[in-house]
């Protein structure tokens, strides 16, 4: 299997005032094609900085980062924008859908920045991925007409539409209740089983149970990088939840 992500002794410094803050102090790991990796850590552990670098939004101060065999460190802003457009699918905690824009148009968005894709292809591809995330009947709904879980599915469809080499999810279940979280995780697991490579940043240990591998970060260093022998199935966990969970949550809140 090929290496999708390969980082070697990654360091990232920030200058805050006169002080040098070391967010990443030398990180090395490899993510291979078809892996489902969770990156875990408390706040301040450097996981956001790492995700920004993996997502080509930021560049490391030191160390090498190869995305699908391409060295990112010396790339210009525009080159990285193009790379993100072609190789990466982002899923954010707050969905980040465009308001007053239909699900379909939201999903089409990444392809609009790729002039090689025609309007017809774009629409076909968007419909295809929306069907894959189970939103065939919601294509022309606006974000405010959908639940959080549905909005996140649209966001996942948007991340899939450019056929990326890796999906980077940043606390993708952070704004969702347990039941919906499990639904989303089961979608991620399904995508992974279909061959998608996924890197999932989270601070919730129960979410990490659904991945095959967990990387723990602390103070800018990897403290643990373990492959799991047993991966929990999100679909099964979902079925195991009490039926009236939603009601209980609404009463509790």
């Amino acid at each position, binding site marked *: 299997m090929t290496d999708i992500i390969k980082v070697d002794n990654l360091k990232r410094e920030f200058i805050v005032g006169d002080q040098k803050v070391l967010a990443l102090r030398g990180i090395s790991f490899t993510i291979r094609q078809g892996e489902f990796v969770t990156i875990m850590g408390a706040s301040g552990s450097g996981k956001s900085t790492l995700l*920004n670098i993996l*997502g080509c*939004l*930021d560049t490391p101060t030191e160390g090498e980062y190869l995305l699908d065999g391409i060295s990112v460190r010396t790339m210009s*802003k*525009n080159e990285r*924008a*193009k790379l*993100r*457009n*072609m190789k990466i699918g*982002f899923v*954010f905690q*707050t969905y*980040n859908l*465009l*308001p*007053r*824009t239909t699900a379909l148009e939201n999903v089409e*968005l*990444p392809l*609009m*920045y*790729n*002039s090689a894709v025609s309007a017809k292809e774009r629409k076909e591809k968007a419909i295809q991925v929306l069907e894959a995330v189970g939103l065939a009947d919601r294509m022309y709904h606006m974000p405010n007409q959908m639940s959080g879980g549905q909005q996140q599915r649209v966001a996942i469809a*948007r991340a899939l539409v*450019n056929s990326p080499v890796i999906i980077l999810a940043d606390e993708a279940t952070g704004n969702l209740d347990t039941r919906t979280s499990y639904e989303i995780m089961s979608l991620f697991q399904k995508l992974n089983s279909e061959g998608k490579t996924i890197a999932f940043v989270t601070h919730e240990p129960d979410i990490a149970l659904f991945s095959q591998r967990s990387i723990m970060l602390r103070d800018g260093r990897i403290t643990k990088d373990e492959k799991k022998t047993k991966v929990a199935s999100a679909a099964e966990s979902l079925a195991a939840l009490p039926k009236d969970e939603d009601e209980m949550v609404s009463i509790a809140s």
Partner: protein
Amino acid sequence: MNITNLFKISLKALVSNKFRALLTMLGIIIGVAAVIAMLAIGQGSKQSIQDEISKMGSNMIMVQPGADMFSGGARMSATANQSLILGDYEAIKDQSNYISAISPLVNATGQSIYGANNWPVSMQGVNQDYLSIRKYNVASGRIFSEREIATAAKVCLIGQTVVTNLFGEGSDPVGKSIRYNKIPFEVVGVLTEKGENGMGQDQDDVLLAPYTTVQKRVVAITYLNGIFCSAKNEDVSDKAKTELENILRSRHHVKAGDDDDFHVRSQSEMLTMFSSTSQVMTILLAVIAGISLIVGGIGIMNIMFVSVTERTREIGLRMAIGARGIDILTQFLIEAVLISIVGGIIGVAIGVGSSFLIKSMLHWPIVITSSSIVLSFAVCTFTGVFFGWYPAKKAANLDPIDAIRYE
């Protein structure tokens, strides 16, 4: 990202904020409408002055005795000058190459009397050419003949105002006899109505007689009050003027460097003179209207800043999924230009509409030139680019990491 896609995105953003976009446009709409209407009014008044002046005569050149002449130490008024004589008229007639018609002018003031009616009118002693020079036509009767000029016959042509005041409106006085300063004159013709000229003078309050008659029988003078000529066409008007000056200068023995003892004025000079005042007005109005366009532009800039701030997360997302700085810049720039162009189109419509409204309500002369439309349109497009640039640049320079988590 191709430009069509960016255009769609920008259009969508505007449509989803219709009311705000409209309010922003309002500044541009008012500015453009003002520019168009002001230029229409300015051009209209200029045009009407030009029309009035051209109605005064056909390529007319006037020679008047010069001012600033001293006679025994007392300064004389221009009309009291006696520097122009019949010899000058004849010399010009013989020597000039650019003149198609020429008439001497001798003025007399007095009272015209017919029956129980009397009317003060200035008598103008002229020849037959005078009618074509001043664009007078004979409504009924005839012009006085060469023979009548030679014999200083007591005949006259009268304008409509004189007809009305002496004979009553609509009557035909041809063949009747009037008295002017107690001298009887036969009315041989009536002039067609001409109306007021650009300076508000009644051009129908006129009594024309042969210049010989006026010189010999009415005022008993040998000099002329002026000479009127028509240049052959508009293009030679200036040449004709120079030629007249040279002829008169040599006849009057004016030494090089000395002041002329006469004035030559052409109609085209008057045109320039009167147009220049309205030109200044037009520029002034256009500047005021232009300022409102700038204010409109600042409105666009303001709203674009609000829009950029409000859509920071959207910008962050677009960057994360592959939009380059230039894509974001273009998107916001198109938005600003769309506002200004749509505002410009509405503004042109309102400007043209209100111009016609002014025309029909106030009866002001209105001239809408295509150049004023093109100009205001170009300016408002430029305004959109100019004032949209900075907010768009700000959007393009956002850091996607910060922008996407912006609250």
